[in-house]
């Protein structure tokens, strides 16, 4: 057992912390209020190599590990949930599947620009009637000569308006049992027939782009099929397992940000002639928040460590995602309570943490789906 970060991991954490405090934090209120995707911040993150942490150098990445990536997501999430979510989705969902399942040519052509931060990628799984129930996928990809012709609709897709490549899931046929075979196909966003719009008005993570994609007779070469055509479903599950670690890390970041704000407010705010941090009612809240955050962080680090060691991490990723995101919601809620009336005002930022945290209990598998995943791992 060793709980100590390596020198590289602690340097990465420190660098991202400084970057988040100096570059992202001053913009966080504006990003939320104007619901504007901070494209310039992503350019800078790309230059620093943040978008390629878990990918090898020869593929344009930084050669780091999952744990380093989780540390980076946490530090960004601590100051801005919107930037944190778009970052986590770009790496875990937009780029990782190509790294896990892509051919050498696909990695060269599609992963390199994503890993080196020159462009963003998006993962189109969710549809109006399919998400965690991937079997409900209605989008179809029909083979026509050397091409796939794709038709369908995707919704709630993170970063799609700013993406150069989409990975979309589509029904490509039926197996011998008569069940739909679902495959993943890489679709450049400039392909004819791809229409992307982001009209959603969201409660939180408002600066993170969320888009609807309509695919009308979209033609891409059959060479764009990602991974094994018959194992599409398992591929998404693996991708989502990995994504859960990053959403969990984002939850830890939001919770930590909420605690930091609540703690410093409690130490300054005076009522009845004393700082409110001297009241047990406030102390107990802060103590619970700090404890839950540390427990959540340990779970995130363990899941990341398992993944880095190529050990099964599905159950631990679900534990981490479930616990860390619910911790984020509770911590943000308590942070508002500690701030009293001020906490309800945007200026104090903790209400934003609550709105941002809510998404984490829904996206990439709701809390209920995490419990299902865990129960299945228990043999239910």
């Amino acid at each position, binding site marked *: 057992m060793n709980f100590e970060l390596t020198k590289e991991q602690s*340097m*990465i954490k420190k*660098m991202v912390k400084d970057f988040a405090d100096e570059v992202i934090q001053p913009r966080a209120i504006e990003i939320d209020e104007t619901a504007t995707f901070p494209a310039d911040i992503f350019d800078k993150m790309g230059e*620093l*190599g*943040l978008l390629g942490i878990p990918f090898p150098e020869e593929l344009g990445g930084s*050669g780091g590990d999952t744990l380093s990536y989780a540390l980076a997501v946490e530090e960004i999430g601590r100051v801005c949930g919107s930037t944190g979510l778009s970052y986590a989705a770009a790496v875990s969902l937009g780029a990782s599947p190509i790294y896990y399942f892509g051919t050498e040519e696909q990695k060269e052509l599609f992963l390199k620009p994503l890993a080196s931060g020159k462009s963003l990628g998006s993962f189109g799984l969710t549809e109006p009637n399919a998400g965690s129930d991937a079997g409900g996928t209605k989008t179809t990809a029909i083979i026509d000569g050397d091409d796939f012709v794709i038709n369908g609709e995707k919704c709630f897709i993170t970063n799609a308006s700013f993406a150069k490549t989409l990975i979309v899931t589509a029904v490509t046929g039926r197996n011998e049992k008569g069940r739909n075979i679902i495959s993943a196909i890489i679709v450049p966003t400039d392909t004819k027939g791809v229409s992307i719009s982001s009209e959603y008005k969201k409660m939180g993570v408002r600066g993170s782009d969320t888009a609807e994609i309509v695919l009308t007779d979209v033609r891409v070469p059959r060479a764009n099929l990602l991974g094994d055509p018959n194992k599409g479903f398992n591929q998404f599950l693996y991708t989502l397992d990995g994504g859960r670690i990053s959403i969990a890390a984002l939850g830890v970041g939001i919770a930590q940000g909420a605690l930091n704000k609540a703690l410093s407010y409690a130490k300054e705010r005076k009522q009845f002639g004393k700082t409110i941090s001297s009241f047990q009612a406030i102390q107990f809240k802060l103590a619970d928040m700090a404890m839950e955050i540390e427990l959540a962080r340990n779970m995130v680090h363990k899941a990341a460590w398992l993944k880095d060691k190529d050990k099964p991490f599905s159950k631990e990723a679900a534990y981490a995602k479930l616990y860390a995101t619910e911790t984020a919601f509770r911590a943000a809620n308590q942070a508002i309570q500690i701030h009293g009336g001020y906490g309800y005002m945007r200026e104090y930022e903790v209400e934003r943490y609550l709105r941002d945290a809510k998404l984490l209990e829904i996206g990439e598998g709701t809390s209920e789906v995490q419990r299902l995943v865990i129960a299945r791992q228990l043999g239910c």
Partner: protein
Amino acid sequence: MDIYVLLKRTFDTEEKINVSSGKIEDDGAEFIINPYDEYAVEEAINQRDVHGGEVTVVTVGEEESEKQLRTALAMGADKAVLINTEEDLDEGDQYTTSRILEAYFKDKEADLILAGNVAIDEASGQVGPRLAELLGISFITTITSLKIEDNNAFIEKDIEGDVEVVESSLPLLVTCQQGLNEPRYPSLPGIMKAKKKPLEELEIDDLDLDEDDIEAKTKTVEIFLPPEKEAGRVLEGDIGDQVEELVSLLKNNAKVL
């Protein structure tokens, strides 16, 4: 061009600092590259990128200082040297550090040595100038601009709210002031590459120094935190009365008039 940077690991004064029995507690303190030394690292990298050569970052410190050296390597320095005094020295001062560095630089042919203006922990600003004296080379402190052409350095230097323009031939030691540049963040690929860059570890024996040669010339008598800032006071009433009260407070309480 052979460029060297003198770097110090310090605690982060923006984080909470605890003092107990006359010592700063290491536990819980955050350690960083002295911020003025970051300007020195950044400038060294920029000068190397223009003129070619190599940047070597040198620190006199302890095992833990490796982290700060690796960060400088991640920013883009080429080599690092850790002169580890952890086992040989209990206490040292500016005299100690500059004598150790003198011994290190004795057989080097440095064209340019950059240091921070001061370290934010003890803020003496002495090590750089002392080293230059010992090595018999010129030094210019608190620089805010540096251009090198052929063998000459053209420098702007901060002087009490004004700028002095100075010219000097190389070799030269400069200390860096805020405004010289904007230190970069170490990039991810930089951090991963830093692992493979050379980091030499020396002890004072390797520099043919004896503890007695470099014994501190000063003694730290006491370390204490500044008094906590008290809440301000808002004067009330008629403006005239307020002014009178303020003057009387400044005279009698604060005793500044």
